């Protein structure tokens, strides 16, 4: 029988061996054939309408109007509990930031892990401010989603296919030398991606005005790359699922009510606990009393060694999320290095003399040290329809890891 350490090395090996490539943008039903009418995939572990937080409900109401399942937001809210089927994105190879809703008529970006042949999906980032992923649901939000569906998604798909695919491992490597940690700071990767795609967008453009609009939309959004980083995280982590005797975390995710993790050796079972409140910086006019608890599938980037785990690469983000002095960014990375199996030689941090990002969270180390994984996160308003109000950091609840350890021990014949 393999030992735990051997199994964990295999999990790490698979994560590090991944070769994620952005290969396409396709309609959600093509990416996920099981994605039926009135079915809503959401961020985090499983949850029903009754326990959903404000912004998640706001997004559900909005997406139901967008999909034509309800006349208006009120009708959507009344219909939600009975008429819509809710499932986690993670159950369908997908991820979504914040509320993270995935439904049938959205275009999804496709990241293929060429080393293992698996694919992962994520919708296109809507920009900042009042957007659906932060619970926004008014006409402006829905019109933007329509434009993404009808113009941007198809244009991006054409450009990406024409390019032959965008290799993400070297792009992330470069982003780490340019101050990105790929969670709350994606300006470098967003800019590098646009720089790479722009000639292909131009070459495959069918309409000059639409080309201008696409270049402008992508270019104004410093977080455009986040959703790609997330699909990449999912594509990298999935091959590490289901390794017998491995105590490595394969997913961390939040739905605004519960925080959930999955562990390789315990398969696809979720270990959940109430989400914590982010601590951070609020946009003018907002404060912690407006904040919704932690939310989104985006912690998949920390799961593969980015986000708060790569904080040392991104001193500028420390101030943005209110996490202390920029010069002490490495404290986060070194701290996370205490709870992982290894580090990623392909993703290195110049300011740490090119040390690799800490990778492969071991639930044993988390429980033993009491060091909970730190996550860089956006903060949504607690009410439906408002949007983003800040950014900060949050700790994964230790209870998830403690419960997972008990279950994992059982799989090892230890009680």
């Amino acid at each position, binding site marked *: 029988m393999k030992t735990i350490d051997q199994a964990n090395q295999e999990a790490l090996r698979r994560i590090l061996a991944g070769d994620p490539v952005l290969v396409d943008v396709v309609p959600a039903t093509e990416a996920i054939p099981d994605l039926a009418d009135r079915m809503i995939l959401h961020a985090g572990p499983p949850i029903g309408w009754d326990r959903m937080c404000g912004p998640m409900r706001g997004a559900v109401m909005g997406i139901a109007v967008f999909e034509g399942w309800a006349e208006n937001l009120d009708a959507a809210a009344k219909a939600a509990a009975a008429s819509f089927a809710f499932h986690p994105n993670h159950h369908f190879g997908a991820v979504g930031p914040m509320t993270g809703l995935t439904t049938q008529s959205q275009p999804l970006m496709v990241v293929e892990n060429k080393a293992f042949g698996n694919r992962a999906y994520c919708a296109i980032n809507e920009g900042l401010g009042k957007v659906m992923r932060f619970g926004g649901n008014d006409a402006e939000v829905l019109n933007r989603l329509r434009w993404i569906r009808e113009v941007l998604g198809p244009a991006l798909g054409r450009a990406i296919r024409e390019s032959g695919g965008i290799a993400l491992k070297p792009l992330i490597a470069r982003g780490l030398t340019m101050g990105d940690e790929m969670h709350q700071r994606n300006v470098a990767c967003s800019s590098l991606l646009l720089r790479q795609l722009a000639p292909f967008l131009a070459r495959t453009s069918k309409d000059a005005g639409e080309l201008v609009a696409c270049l402008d939309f992508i270019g104004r959004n410093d977080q455009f790359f986040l959703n790609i980083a997330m699909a990449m995280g999912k594509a990298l982590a999935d091959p590490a699922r289901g390794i017998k005797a491995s105590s490595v975390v394969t997913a961390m995710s939040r739905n605004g009510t519960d925080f959930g993790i999955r562990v390789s050796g315990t398969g696809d079972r979720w270990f959940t606990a109430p989400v914590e409140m982010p601590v951070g910086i609020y946009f003018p006019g907002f404060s912690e009393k407006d904040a919704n608890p932690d939310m989104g599938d985006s912690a998949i980037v920390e799961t593969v060694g980015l986000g708060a785990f790569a904080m040392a690469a991104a001193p500028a983000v420390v101030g943005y999320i209110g996490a*202390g002095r920029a010069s002490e960014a490495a404290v*986060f990375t070194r*701290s996370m290095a205490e709870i992982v199996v290894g580090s990623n030689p392909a993703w290195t941090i110049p300011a740490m003399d090119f040390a690799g990002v800490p990778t492969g969270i071991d639930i044993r180390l988390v*429980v033993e*040290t009491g060091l909970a994984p730190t996550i860089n996160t956006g903060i949504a308003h607690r009410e439906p329809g408002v949007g983003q109000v800040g950014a900060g950091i949050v700790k994964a609840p230790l209870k998830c890891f403690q419960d997972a350890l008990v279950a994992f021990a059982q799989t090892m014949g230890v009680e």
Partner: protein
Amino acid sequence: MDEKDDGASHDLLGAPPRVINIGLEIFAVNLASQGAEVAHVRWSPPAGGNSHLAGLLEKLQGR
């Protein structure tokens, strides 16, 4: 951040050549990179003192 404790810095300076790092990790790293001997001190007992979890961890060791 749990990892920060600026109040500890003067003690650090008072205790060469062996430096006990009880707070700011960056400081320890710099010392270490210059050849000073640095010990990290864990403040909390394993598994936060939860004996059931600590027992599981111990039984899982070597597996």
